[in-house]
Each structure stands twice: as C-alpha cells, then as structure tokens.
C-alpha cells in the first residue's frame, strides 16, 4: 500500500477507535441484552428469547412510539418555521455582522441543557414569570397551566434544538449565489414565486439536515418530557429510561432502544440520500 493510501486511514484511526470503543461496542452490548430474559433483580438472564421485540410491537408501546414521533415531528416543523426566516435574515445581513448574529443564535448552547430546560419551568409555572406578568398587566382569571403540557414539551424541544436548525439552513442559504434569486426576478418572478421556485428548493438539503437533527434528538429525548411534561407525557426516551432504572427490565429497555436507534438510522439514511440527490447525483448519471 502506498504512503498516500495509508495516511487517510491513519488519520481516521483515533476517531474510529473512539467510536468503536465507546459507541459501537456499548450499543451492540445493549442490543444483545434484547435477546435475553430479564433477571429478577435487574440485569440479564442469559436465556435466548424474542419476546422483548414482540412486546415493543404491543399497541400500548406502539402508541408511545407514535406519540413520540408526533411530538418530535411537531417540534421539527415548528423549529423549521422559526429557523428559516431567522437563517434567511442572517444570510442577508451585511457580511461583517453575520458572524455576530450567528454567535447570538448559538449563544444558548453555552449554558447547560438542564439549566436551559429548568429555565422554562421558571417561565411556565403557575407562579412563573409569564403568569406573574399577565397578572401585572391586569389579568385576573385563573393562572394559566402551561407547564406539564404537551406544548411545554414541544416548546422545550424547539428551544433547545433551534440553533442547529438555524445553522443548517444558514449554511445552505449563505452558499446560494444571490444572482440566482436576481435571475429569477429578472425572468419575471416576484419575490414569492422566486422563493418557492428557486430559494426554497435549493435550500431543502439544509432544511432536511436541520429537520432530521431535531426529529432524531427529540424522539429519543427524555430530559425535556420528564421536566416539562411532568412525566405525564411519556415518550420513548422516558420509557427506555424507566425500563433500565425503575422497572429493572434491561432486555425490554434494550429492545425499545434498538427500535429507536433503527428509526433514527433509517431517517438519517433517507436524509443523506435526499441530500446526495439534490447535489449532483445526476453528475454520475451523465458520466455513465
């Protein structure tokens, strides 16, 4: 093997080794639990069974899966709807101010996820800032119960992952040649048709990347539903958490986790395919 062919492999080696040791092996380990029976006091009894996978398909749990998917999807759509205009505004700002605006967009990341989520409790509480503000403005009715609702969970998810979506969409928008939009105007399309037929289709890979990101992180999330949903709105993440730490049913938790990871992998592959298609899969066809 030549030096040039070896070097990329060598450079990737530490990363790959890290991933294998701390990601692939533990995942496979946990996955293997799914094929065994539960131990009486937690842990695993090494008797082969497929029963855990059968339980995942149980309507009760399938419903939680679907519910998680619905919440994650809502969070994804809301995040995209908020992030797109923000990313658009940043990409149209003067070159010099764009990094500053991006800095502010990702600023929340600099604090801890838990603290950020707790902050929402302070805001949404019956005795929280929003209710106090409403009272100060003269609202006299019952305090609004905003905390421990599905909307609170969605709000928390959107808030936490929004910066990713802004960055993903911004990166495609900023690489877009502004003359494409001008060409569209020049050819007779107004601003709306220009957006729908040129800007949006060309930035879909960024929207997809950001969207899949929010969806994948949301569907498996357990901190936000636990804190802002008050445990009333169970998502798959909480279910998995409960199996391992409360119900002591590791094999079933592993089976649920496997189903979750499979869902994420399928989505990521779909997104990668869509992006590859959008950016030059056709090139290959031409060369054939």
């Amino acid at each position, binding site marked *: 093997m030549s030096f040039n062919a070896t070097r990329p492999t060598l450079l990737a080696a530490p990363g790959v080794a890290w991933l294998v040791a701390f990601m692939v092996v533990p995942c496979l380990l946990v996955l293997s639990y799914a094929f065994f029976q539960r131990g009486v006091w937690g842990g695993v009894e090494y008797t082969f069974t497929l029963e855990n996978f059968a339980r995942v398909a149980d309507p009760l749990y399938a419903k939680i899966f679907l519910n998680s998917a619905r919440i994650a999807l809502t969070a994804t759509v809301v995040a995209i709807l908020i992030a797109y205009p923000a990313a658009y505004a940043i990409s149209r700002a003067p070159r010099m101010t764009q990094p500053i605006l991006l800095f502010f967009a990702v600023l929340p990341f600099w604090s801890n996820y838990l603290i950020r989520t707790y902050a929402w409790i302070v805001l949404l509480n019956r005795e929280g800032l929003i209710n106090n503000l409403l009272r100060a403005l003269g609202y006299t009715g019952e305090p609004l119960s905003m905390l421990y609702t599905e909307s609170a969970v969605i709000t928390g998810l959107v808030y936490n992952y929004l910066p990713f979506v802004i960055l993903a969409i911004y990166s495609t928008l900023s690489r877009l*040649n502004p003359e494409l939009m001008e*060409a569209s105007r020049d*050819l007779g399309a107004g601003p709306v048709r220009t957006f729908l037929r040129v800007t949006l289709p060309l930035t879909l890979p960024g929207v997809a990347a950001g969207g899949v990101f929010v969806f994948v992180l949301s569907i498996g999330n357990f901190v936000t539903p636990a804190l802002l949903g008050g445990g009333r709105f169970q998502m798959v993440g909480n279910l998995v958490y409960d199996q391992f730490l409360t119900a002591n049913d590791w094999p079933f938790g592993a089976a649920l986790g496997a189903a979750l990871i499979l869902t994420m992998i399928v989505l990521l592959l779909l997104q990668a395919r869509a992006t590859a298609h959008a950016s030059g899969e056709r090139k290959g066809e031409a060369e054939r």
Partner: protein
Amino acid sequence: MNSSSNPILRIEGVGKSFGPVTAVDNVTLDIRENEFFALLGPSGCGKTTLLRMLAGFESPNTGRILLEGKDISPLPPEKRPLNLMFQSYALFPHMTVRQNLSYGLEMERLAKAEIRRRVDETMAMTDLTPFADRKPEQLSGGQKQRVALARALVKRPKVLLLDEPLGALDKKLRERMQLELKRMQNEAGITFIIVTHDQEEALVMADRMAILKDGRLLQVGAPEEVYERPADRFVANFIGVMNFIDGKVGADGLFAAEGLQVKAAGAKAGAATLAIRPENIAIGPPGDHPVAGTITDIAYHGLDRVLHVKTAASETPLQVRIPASGAGNWKIGDALSLKIDPAKCRLFNA
C-alpha cells in the same frame, strides 16, 4: 432619420452612490433600437452598477431611465421588459436546460404549448437542442454561456443586458463567441447592451460604445471614432495601444518635445501631450526621418512586429508597429529614424 436609429432606451442624468462612494455620476446616454452597444471601462468604473440600474436591481439616486419614452426606474426587475444575462450565468442548478428556458415564460403565464414552441425555437437557434434534458452542472462553460443567453432571449426582451458575458471563457472560445453573439443579436433583432472591461471585445462587437471612468461618461461613439479620435488621454490609453510624448505647444501652434516637432491641428498653446498609435509611425535608416532612436526591444506578433524605440522625446520607448514580412533585419540595439504622421496625431492639453 430611419426608425433603426431611434433611441429605444434613454438614460437621463442617472446617478448612484453607495454611501460616500459615487458609482455612477450623472450619466446621460441614448441607446438606439437594434444596436449592439458596449459599456466599456476598467473595473470599478460604474458600468456594472449602470447595468444593474437598467435591470432594476439598483435604483438610481438621480435621473430617469426611459424605455420607449416610458420611465421604468420605479419598476421592480420582474416588471421590466429587459433581461439580463448574468456574469456568473446564474443558471438554476436544480432545473434542466429546458426548465431553465421555460421558467421566464411560465412567469408570463403563457400556454404550455406556446412555451414549448418558443423554447424549442430558441434552443435550436442557440444549438442547445441536444442538451435540453441536462442540468447546468453537466454542461461545459461555453454551453452554460449559451443557456444563459437563450434563457434571456426566449423572453424576447426589448433590450438584452449582458454583464461580461464572455469573461469566464478561454481566449479561443471567447473570440468565437464574440462573432456568435453578434450573429444572434442580428438574428433576434434585439438591442444588446454589453458590459465589458475588454476594449478589444468592445471594438470587435459593438456598433457603438461608451467609455466610463469613475462613474463618468468620457466618450460615446462608434469603435472607429473612439479609436481614431479618443476624447482624452484616458480613452486614448485605454483603447488599443498608444504612445504618449509630453511636450508643449508654442505660440506658432507647433508641438515640440526633445528632438521632435510636429504640426498638429487643434492645439492650444501650453503644456500638451502628443498621442500617436504604433501603426502611424514610419521607420527608416538613421537620417531618413527627423526623429533619431535606438531599438530596445522587438516583439513578434505573427502578422506584425512591434519595435520599442528609445528616443530623446519620451521616457518610455515608443512602440512602432511594422509588418512582419519585409520588415528588414532590425535587431535590438540598431539605430534608426522615425517619422510621425501629423494627420494621425492627437494632442491633449495638460
């Protein structure tokens, strides 16, 4: 006056500044129907800003832009019957050649059959038919350039604006496309306004040209006019090759520099610069002609040779163009004499 010389576009006292920078300074210009007009100038001269104001992407601070007598300056780009061919071509990467061409007609809400007919027709004219279903990234530079042109032409604009249309092409292809563009302009019967920094390109293609510098219009005229009678020293230097000799004009109207005297018309007394093209200087053996010089360099151009001749009259050697064939055996270091044709001289007072 026949209809072909009527102004289709009138730029009236148009000015544009970006903050403290004046990009276009009070430009007034008439562009006639069906002409191939070139806006020529060095980079930063305001030619692109002027073009963008015509297309509607910048609005002038002062003045008006009249298309067939109607002020179009308040209209957004999509409402103007002008089309722009972008320097970067700006082809839609997610659309095929056919879709790129159809786009502008779909915006006019034409019937599908009509769109198809016009797109087919335009693709045939620009030799794009075999590439109808290709995406821009599958095209060569020259093909992309033709798609950009076709996409604008298919709209049948009253005026087609072209921003450095040949800038991205290599020299051979550029020369071919210069003639190609001229042919298409003729066939389509559309007024073309082209922006370029390449004076040769402007000379080859344009019916008339305008030379801009620092946002100001220096001269407007046919290529021959501008080449032979440049309005000032800048234009003289910018178009083609020009020799400059600093000297002064005496009370007798005679231009004089060290070892050289020329009787040129239109000179005012005082410090002046004489401009003479390399092809308007004759050479002979020492003593034949009034100006003595020594060859410092010889550049062979195929068809002709350019001698660089040091004389007492100017700091920089004068360039003299002589035919390559029958040029004699001039070598570097040879002494010779020069004769400047007074009829072909231009004098610019300092």
